[in-house]
């Protein structure tokens, strides 16, 4: 406990760590990209984006901000860095896009290096600040605009750019090959049949009620999650299917690098896969950004006001399974649990109350973290931040101190994080700050506690 207190309260130590981490993290993609830039190209690109790709919305944000500073309290980065003004949301705008606007695109390479850092590593585009600005100014939108400019200047951080390259080539985030995907599903099916006689993971079943989709990290290194879902689908007797062809991955890192064209392509392939299978609706695993991609953003890039299919996040799906009695809980989970509300399904879709109902149906002892629901602090990993990779992990941990303090205050033994990005980021936090907590997906607990029925058709 002593060591934990030290790391969490000694700011000088943390600042030193941050400086060290910053010096170490020279990103080859950013540096090489900056080398290639000429002042003419910088100016032309910035002005093209500002003039052609923005409109009255951006203009209104710039003209309306009264520099009141109320957004500061919203931001985990500001709170984790001892209220350093540079980390407040409006300052991030001031140090990136305002400056580009004022200088009409005539900015230096050093300025751009800072702009990449601020927009990609010091903002999770979680939109909490939009709830703390009296005028509802969307600073996340402006940070994504900065990332768009960085993308067009080809100075996106290496790791996240690689995931976009993978999306572009394979339509999934992790270079999963077509045969590996099918092979993984069949492997999980085979394993699960030892527990559930006749269990199937139906591939390409035309006209199924539900297309189930996951993000590429699941087949890549968390195949057990697919197993668990298959078990739930089987026990509940759901008419479901998974696509065998590209378009199965609902993740979308291009959405976070400003590569809007590829982002739109990914979402389109995803919806076309569902359309081809003529499913009634799409259910997706516990991922937040993927939900944002197909529910809120990818559809817009394809000129759909709302997604062309009903898209159901795992939280809402579990709620449905439990309240309809399709799955019953054999014995409630005993340990004291707390719940992290991921920005993209809570602030992004209002699923926080349903999530609490599910947790209370599954667990005996639930304690809320404070703040919670729409006001929950960000995991510090989402919005593409964790995807910028290991070189930046050190500074990410410094920037997440606030989250560690919030988690520690709950006194819970188990942290439920129903989002892949949050899950990975929070796992890092628990380890770094030595919090005595286990981390789980809600599906882990559903699977652990549910009645493991063997479904018999017609029975």
């Amino acid at each position: 406990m002593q060591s934990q207190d030290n790391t969490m309260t000694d700011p000088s130590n943390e600042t030193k760590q941050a400086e060290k981490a910053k010096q170490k993290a020279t990103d080859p993609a950013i540096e090489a990209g900056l080398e290639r830039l000429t002042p003419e190209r910088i100016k032309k690109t910035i002005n093209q984006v500002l003039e052609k790709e923005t409109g009255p919305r951006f203009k209104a944000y710039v003209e309306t901000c009264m520099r009141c500073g109320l957004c500061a309290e919203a931001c985990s980065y500001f709170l984790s860095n001892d209220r350093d003004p540079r980390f407040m949301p409006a300052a991030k705008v001031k140090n990136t896009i305002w400056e580009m606007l004022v200088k009409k695109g005539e900015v230096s390479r050093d300025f751009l290096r800072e702009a990449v850092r601020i927009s990609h590593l010091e903002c999770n585009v979680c939109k909490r600040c939009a709830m703390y600005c009296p005028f509802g100014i969307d600073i996340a939108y402006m940070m994504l605009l900065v990332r768009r400019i960085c993308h067009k200047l080809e100075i996106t951080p290496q790791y996240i750019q690689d995931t976009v390259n993978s999306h572009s080539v394979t339509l999934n985030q992790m270079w999963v090959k077509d045969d590996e995907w099918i092979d993984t599903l069949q492997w999980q099916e085979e394993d699960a049949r030892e527990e559930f006689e006749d269990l199937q993971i139906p591939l390409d079943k035309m006209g199924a009620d539900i297309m189930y989709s996951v993000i590429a990290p699941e087949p890549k290194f968390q195949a057990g999650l697919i197993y668990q879902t298959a078990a739930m689908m089987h026990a509940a007797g759901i008419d479901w299917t998974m696509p065998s062809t590209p378009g199965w991955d609902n993740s979308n890192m291009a959405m976070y690098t400003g590569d809007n064209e590829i982002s739109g392509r990914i979402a389109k392939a995803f919806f076309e896969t569902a359309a081809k299978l003529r499913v009634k609706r799409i259910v997706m695993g516990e991922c937040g950004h993927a939900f944002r991609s197909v529910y809120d953003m990818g559809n817009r890039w394809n000129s759909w006001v709302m997604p062309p299919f009903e898209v159901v996040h795992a939280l809402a799906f579990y709620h449905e399974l439990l309240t309809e009695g399709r799955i019953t809980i054999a014995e409630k989970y005993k340990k004291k649990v707390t719940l992290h509300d991921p920005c993209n399904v809570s602030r992004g879709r209002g699923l926080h109350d349903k999530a609490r109902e599910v947790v209370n149906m599954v667990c005996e002892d639930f304690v809320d973290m404070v703040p919670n629901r729409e006001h929950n602090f960000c995991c510090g990993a989402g919005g593409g931040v964790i995807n910028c990779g290991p070189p930046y992990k050190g500074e990410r941990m410094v920037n997440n101190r606030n989250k560690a303090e919030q988690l520690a205050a709950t006194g819970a033994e188990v942290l439920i994080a129903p989002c892949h990005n949050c899950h990975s980021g929070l796992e890092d936090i628990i380890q770094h700050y030595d919090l005595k907590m286990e981390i789980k997906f809600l599906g882990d607990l559903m699977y652990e506690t549910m009645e493991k029925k063997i479904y018999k058709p017609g029975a």
Partner: protein
Amino acid sequence: MNSFIAFIMGPMVWISAIIFLGGLLFKFIGIIQSVRSKEPYVFSYLTVKHSLRSIGAWLIPFFPKSTRLSPVYYGISYVFHIFLFVIPLFLASHIVLFNEAFQISWPALNDGVADWLSLAVIAALVFFAIRRQMVPEVKYLTSGSDYLLIFLVALPFITGYLAYHQWFAYRWMVVAHVLSGELMLIMIPFSRFSHMLTAPLTRAYMGSEFGNVRHARDW
């Protein structure tokens, strides 16, 4: 000189009122047209219900969490904005002028009360200026134009207060008061004072995104 004063006290009042109202109207039309041609998606998500829900929530004192985290600043700011409109509109000597021009009148504030309210507005502006120096995150964002805006609002209230008490150079103080009032009105459409028009619009859009798409609260 007299003709200059006559111009300031006469036609210029009309000109500044027209620039103020016309400028805001022009700006509003410009925004709508520009949204239509460049970002029509805004209309796909904007709903009256969720716009009003969000604006309404943010008008209730200390209802949004953000306002509870900075209660002093928010409280002063809230009262300041009310007084900013109430004082000029309900001042007896202003109502007399409206009556002369349009033959309409309405109940006036007691002069003594208005006097204290004006002092409160000036005090609030002093608070805003000091806050810009004292609170690090606000100081970080502050530039000269922020002080200029504070000064522009303070000027009509300071000159009005001095003119009312007739402590010195009454006639010149009245001229300065009218001139500074005109300057402020003219500046509204062309400066960040225009947040009186744009803030409800940005709030409405964010309120609609939250209410209509995100099914979440934005306060």
